[in-house]
């Protein structure tokens, strides 16, 4: 196809472990739990998996190859995500390409991490060499400090307010209350949001994710291997990724999605207004604003006004992060890049429980790999339920 789409591949299964603030389990254990759940959902035995895409920050010294050994797999295609929170979507897109090329038939796209606040900060202090040598020594505050700078600049440049960011955080908390696996169990009020403990101003506690432990997985397969399952097959209609965009401009307040979004929408034959939900990468509310702009839902600088007019809860006219997202469900390290994929697939399969939308298609977006002043990688995909 001239569009370079993802024909011939279906998302056949989905799985997620319990999200927990602390766990005695190893990351390998969480990877297996997520994989086992997703294989159960797809109806495939473990040995049917011949391709594996894994992202887990705390996996070293192990890697995807050793995970295959651990699980007793004999894969002919392996991939390990090096794109932080963009890795979940990218692993899925690359896995789909492998199936299209005949390099694998059944690909497990898998993320997990074992994190708490202390281990998260420790990792972030040495995330890569530019962070370790040129940010850590200056007390940058981890990603909180970096995105405090972006949030400050965004507010200064576009006039967005703390209340604008708070509205989105509160809406996601409402969505989380319908997700039994979300770690936050009580509503968030604007007063609580605005007066929460300062972390790195203008960011306060509820602008920051809760590091936790958990795992997420989707199973991709060649379409002829998967019975239609009463409309539970999900397809990738379009997707893309970009890295280090724009070169030389850390503070563009753009992530790079604008670089591939037209091609993605063209692949799908759809536009932003056709999306019935959006699962954004919500490491910080400001990045959700940037994503809405870069993905073409509103013009640059227009996200605050766009969101003021919309209800982004599950019952609203523009649902965002319908499971609560990382801000209210939790950020299980690299699984933060997969939680949106899993939520999108659950919604499209009709398996989202109390938070179920009536939706045929939606978008999921990824972002990550914080380096010298910003995340380097972004990704997105449009997913749709088969009619």
């Amino acid at each position: 196809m001239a569009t370079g789409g993802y024909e011939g591949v279906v998302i056949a299964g989905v799985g997620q472990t319990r999200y927990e603030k602390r766990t005695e389990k190893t990351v390998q254990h969480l990877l297996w739990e997520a994989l086992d759940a997703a294989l159960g959902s797809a109806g495939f035995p473990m040995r049917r998996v011949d391709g594996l895409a894994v992202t887990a920050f705390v996996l070293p010294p192990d890697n995807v190859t050793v995970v295959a050994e651990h699980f007793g797999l004999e894969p002919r295609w392996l991939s390990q995500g090096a794109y932080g929170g963009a890795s979940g979507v990218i692993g899925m897109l690359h896995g789909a390409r492998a199936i299209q090329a005949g390099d694998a038939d059944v690909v497990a796209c898998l993320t997990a991490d074992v994190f708490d606040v202390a281990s998260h900060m420790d990792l972030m202090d040495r995330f890569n060499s530019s962070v370790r040598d040129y940010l850590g020594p200056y007390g940058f505050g981890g990603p909180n400090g970096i995105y405090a700078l972006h949030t400050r600049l965004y507010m200064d440049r576009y006039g967005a307010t703390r209340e604008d960011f708070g509205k989105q955080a509160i809406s996601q908390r409402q969505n989380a209350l319908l997700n039994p696996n979300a770690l936050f169990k009580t509503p968030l009020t604007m007063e609580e949001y605005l007066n929460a403990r300062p972390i790195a101003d203008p960011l306060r506690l509820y602008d920051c994710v809760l590091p936790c432990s958990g795992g997420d997985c989707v199973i991709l397969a060649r379409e002829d291997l998967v019975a239609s399952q009463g409309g539970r097959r999900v397809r990738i209609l379009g997707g893309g990724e970009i890295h280090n965009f724009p070169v030389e401009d850390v503070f563009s307040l753009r992530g790079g999605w604008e670089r591939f979004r037209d091609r993605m929408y063209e692949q799908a034959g759809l536009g932003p207004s056709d999306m019935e939900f959006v699962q954004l990468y919500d490491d910080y509310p400001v990045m959700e604003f940037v994503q809405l702009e870069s993905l073409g839902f509103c013009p640059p600088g227009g996200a605050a006004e766009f969101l003021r007019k919309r209800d982004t809860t599950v019952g609203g006219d523009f649902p965002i992060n319908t499971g609560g997202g990382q801000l209210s469900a939790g950020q299980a390290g690299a699984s933060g890049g997969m939680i949106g994929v899993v939520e999108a697939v659950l919604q499209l399969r009709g398996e989202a429980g109390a938070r179920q939308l009536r939706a045929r298609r939606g978008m999921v977006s990824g972002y990550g790999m914080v380096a010298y002043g910003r995340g380097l990688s972004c990704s997105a995909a449009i997913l749709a339920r088969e009619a």
Partner: protein
Amino acid sequence: MEPKPSPRLTAINQPFLRGSNRDELWLQRCVQPACRKFVFYPRVCCPHCGAGALTWEQATGRGQVVSFSRVFRPQHESFFPEAPYYFIAVRLSEGPLFFSRLDHQGLPVETNLIGRQVRAVFVQHTPEQRLPLFELC
């Protein structure tokens, strides 16, 4: 308490770190006549044009604040006693972006530092290494 995290001395960044110990800010600069851009953080090649030949030049240490944050929750416990402090992004007058701290206490909380002129000041970071912070001009 653990010591503060310190940059590793490498074959690439020696002039920067040794310059800091003399209270001088040194930057890489591309030697290609068509480029001549300054570079930070230290690289093996010019990120503007891809050429491998970079020299080192002493910078003015002057710049402008692009954005700033008061950090209440440092990423490393060695910074806890100093918190809250101002983490800042500085656009150096030579062009590169430089992330550092403001060597300043007691600013009014509502002070907007965006666009303010700053200059490098060097502080003893660890017993072996001095590093550039910035102060308002």
